[in-house]
């Protein structure tokens, strides 16, 4: 048979038609998985049948902006000390029962068993809630424990999944809240209570409701190993504005599948995927296909293990930065999914411009410059013999960069980097590692000289810089206290010094980073400026490219997709739909 005798995706479907997309949050759907948002292979699709209290706008600098989810509106206390949620007045679960404040409270109880920033059981955790209060049928107030506040508290609350208590009720014991109270205290009693709650976590994770009951725009109808079918939830509060009647959620194991679907014009939307240039060309020539690009809060860095020679020498790192042509690397490795980093700041270029303003331009851009590189290398004591660089003691310098084998864009990028370095007289090669877990383990054990490392994981400033000056570089926060571990210990594989010199002044970047947890406003901005400068001069990583959130949409069947640079590109398309954007094409 050919594709012709199958019902075309969407098209002639009744009502609002069929919307086809892919679950971008791997590990994806699994026929055996429970319909449970906490389960990593659970068949709860964010924004489609799995609902959060609200959806973050992922604003460049302000983490506290949201789109409504289960909550219709909210008030945040100015000092972030509490948040009051107001639920949609007439909202009902797909089985007809109303969505109540009790459901929210119960779901928060579940969140405690799973751990989250806002709902942590260990005392002293930063940004944890101290109280959850049902104000009335449709109102809940959550208060932060101000002993150790965090700017991420609100975001932590909003990110919670909300599930129906009448379905999940059996999972938690009746005295859960008492236990929780006990757990947040101190002493043996508390310890025991914490254990009990932890023990519940497995039960929660494994809980499999017999059928999907959702307050989202869709409910799960049926699935096979590669696809799931969702149908519209008539009880959803905004059901009238939900475009598609059905959603087909495809599973994928390799990017090449997404490419093929896209080329065939089968997908109404596909989340960000690395795409080779020619495939891109074919995709864009398919009728109706379009590409929407936006900010993706993540960058790729080439990180050094500073406990290894010669990478302990900042001049070597700078020299290497001068030798790498980031434009070319990006063109080869991620032509569609990335833009060459303007320089190394530790932040994605977009928020960097926002946070740093004019200071950004003052940072060293590390443009390709062989002369400068040689200067730096000479400063570091390296010698060039017969066209090849050697270490100060005359031994050959072998530059080895490690990347995990499944990440093809990283491999291409690393190959491009080594090719450039080889051309400049450095004996460079790429070594791959079988898979990501192994890569991370060996990286953490300090086995690699140089490795690829995701940085700038925004939007929260602490999250951004903890990639450079966090656990992987020795700094960890334990019980609210900052500690620094020796290189090679406690996951410190970057092995940078505890204090570095920035413009002649000594700075402890880890300390600065930790402060970002609670700092706000101008203070935050100042710290980020300092850290950006530190990263730019010290170069714990060479920032290669900033990811671009490249999404594919097809306007043959639906319209109303977010525009370029929309905040919503960082939310799953289920959120677009529930917000009433996506409409069937007339």
């Amino acid at each position, binding site marked *: *048979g*050919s*594709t012709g005798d*199958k019902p075309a995706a969407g098209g002639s479907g009744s009502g609002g038609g069929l919307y086809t997309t892919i679950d971008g*949050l*791997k*590990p994806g759907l*699994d*026929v*055996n*998985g*429970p319909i449970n948002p906490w*389960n*990593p*292979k659970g068949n709860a699709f964010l924004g489609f049948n799995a609902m959060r209290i609200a959806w973050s706008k992922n604003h460049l600098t302000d983490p506290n902006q949201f789109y409504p989810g289960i909550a219709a509106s909210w008030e945040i206390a100015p000092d972030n000390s509490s948040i009051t949620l107001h639920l949609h007045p007439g909202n009902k679960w797909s089985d007809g029962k109303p969505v109540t404040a009790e459901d929210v409270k119960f779901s928060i109880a579940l969140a405690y*068993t*799973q*751990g*989250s*920033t806002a709902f942590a059981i260990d005392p002293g*955790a930063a940004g944890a809630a101290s109280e959850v209060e049902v104000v009335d049928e449709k109102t809940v107030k959550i208060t932060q424990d101000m002993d150790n506040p965090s700017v*991420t508290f609100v*975001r*932590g609350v909003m*990110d919670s999944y909300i599930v129906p208590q009448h379905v999940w009720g059996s999972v938690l014991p009746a005295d859960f809240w008492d236990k929780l109270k006990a757990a947040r205290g101190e002493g043996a009693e508390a310890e025991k209570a914490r254990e009990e709650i932890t023990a519940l*976590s*497995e039960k929660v*994770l*494994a809980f*499999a409701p017999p059928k999907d009951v959702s307050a989202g725009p869709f409910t799960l109808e*049926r699935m*096979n*190993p*590669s*696809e*799931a*079918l969702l149908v519209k939830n008539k009880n959803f509060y905004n059901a009238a504005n939900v475009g598609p009647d059905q959603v*087909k959620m*495809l*599973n*994928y*194991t*390799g990017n090449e*599948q997404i490419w*093929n679907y896209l080329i*065939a014009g089968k997908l109404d939307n596909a989340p960000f995927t690395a795409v080779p240039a020619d495939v891109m060309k074919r995709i864009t020539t398919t009728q109706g296909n379009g590409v929407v690009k936006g900010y993706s*809060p993540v960058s790729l860095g080439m990180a050094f293990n500073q406990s290894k020679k010669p990478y302990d020498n900042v001049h070597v790192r700078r020299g290497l930065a001068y030798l790498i042509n980031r434009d070319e690397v990006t063109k080869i490795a991620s032509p569609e999914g990335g833009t060459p980093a303007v320089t190394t700041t530790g932040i994605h270029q977009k928020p960097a411009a926002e946070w740093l303003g004019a200071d950004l331009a003052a940072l060293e851009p590390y443009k390709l410059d062989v002369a400068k590189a040689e200067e730096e290398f000479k400063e570091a004591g390296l010698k060039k013999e017969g066209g090849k660089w050697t270490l100060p003691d005359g031994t050959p310098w072998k530059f080895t960069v490690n990347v995990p084998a499944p990440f093809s864009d990283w491999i291409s990028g690393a190959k491009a980097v080594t090719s450039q370095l080889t051309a400049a007289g450095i004996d460079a090669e790429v070594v791959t590692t079988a*898979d*990501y*877990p*192994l890569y*991370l*383990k*060996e990286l*953490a054990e300090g086995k690699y000289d140089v490795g690829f490392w995701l940085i700038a*994981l925004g939007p929260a400033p*602490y*999250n951004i810089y*903890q990639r450079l000056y*966090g656990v992987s570089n020795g700094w960890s926060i334990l019980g609210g206290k900052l500690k620094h571990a020796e290189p090679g210990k406690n996951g410190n594989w970057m092995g940078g010094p505890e204090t570095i010199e920035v413009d002649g002044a000594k700075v402890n970047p880890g300390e600065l980073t930790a402060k970002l947890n609670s700092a706000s406003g101008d203070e935050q901005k100042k710290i980020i400026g300092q850290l950006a400068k530190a990263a730019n001069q010290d170069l714990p990583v060479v920032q290669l490219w900033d990811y671009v959130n490249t999404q594919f949409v097809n306007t043959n069947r639906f319209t109303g997709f977010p525009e370029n640079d929309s905040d919503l590109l960082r939310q799953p398309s289920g959120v677009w739909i529930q917000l009433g954007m996506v409409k069937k094409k007339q």
Partner: protein
Amino acid sequence: MTMFARRLAGHLARGLVMVLVVTTVSFFVIRSVPGDPMAARYEKLVEQGMSPTAAQRAVEVLYGFAPTGSLWQQYVDYMSGLLRLDLGQSLMVPGVGVSTVLFSAAKWTVLPVLAGTLLSFLIGVVMGVYAAIRRSGRLGDVLAISGSLLHGVPQYVLALLLGAVFTTLIPILPTSGTADIMFEPGFNAGYIGSLIEYATLPVLTYALASYGGWILAMKSSVVTVLGDDFILAAELRGIKRGIVFRYVARNAILPLFTILALSLGMLFGGAIFIERIFNYPGLGLMLIDGINNRDYALMGGAFLLITVAIVVANIVADLFYSVIDPRVRSGEGAR
């Protein structure tokens, strides 16, 4: 019949020991797989925007399903679980039993591979006879060489070639999945048609890859039998050609049944490349996933399943042989 029972008992005893040893070996090999699945999951969560502390906590919860205790203790737990036919809990799909995961993946491996094997067996056997009869002619040569070539070429080469042709150059076949979700699963023409359509490429690859082996085996078997005296004797008695042909065919195909049974045993572990290339959600793909997620219980379960299948196939092959071959049936030993 006692002969048969004795044989069976012996086989079962040996098979059990085999399974035990293989399970033990694979247990320790699997547990020594390095790599930090927690770190990988953590990275993923952080990448998705979760705060580092929350991600850390979430990962700890997820890995609450991993067995604890010393390696030795884990081994004892695992083996005693096996006695109760409990293969443990999957880490990848937390809270779901390994046997459930295995079972749902196994059917997507077994059905296409079975179809491929039987298809290639039938065609291969027929062509093998032909190649044997025409062995001195050009056609026989071509058949034999193409058989060797197909037998020799690795599965992934065939899969990639077929994939390149049918999905890149002439995109007429789906490359991934099991069926179109729009069809209600069950016995309806649409669903079954879609199943067949989606399985075409994997089955075709598997059939092509094993076809070469069958043609070679059948050819050499037929050539051997044709050289046997009893065939000439039958001809000299004026036995009809059809009957002589049946003599040849039955005697020649007999050893192939053993190979067939054995290869059916192998099918559980046999399709990793095909499943990876066509993204067909069978055991192979599941195993790769299991390894990538360091799902020890799942890996162990897969190894066990494959081993048991091979052992059972061996037993079945032998017993089957002893049933259909009168020489073995009466305990004289195969020729």
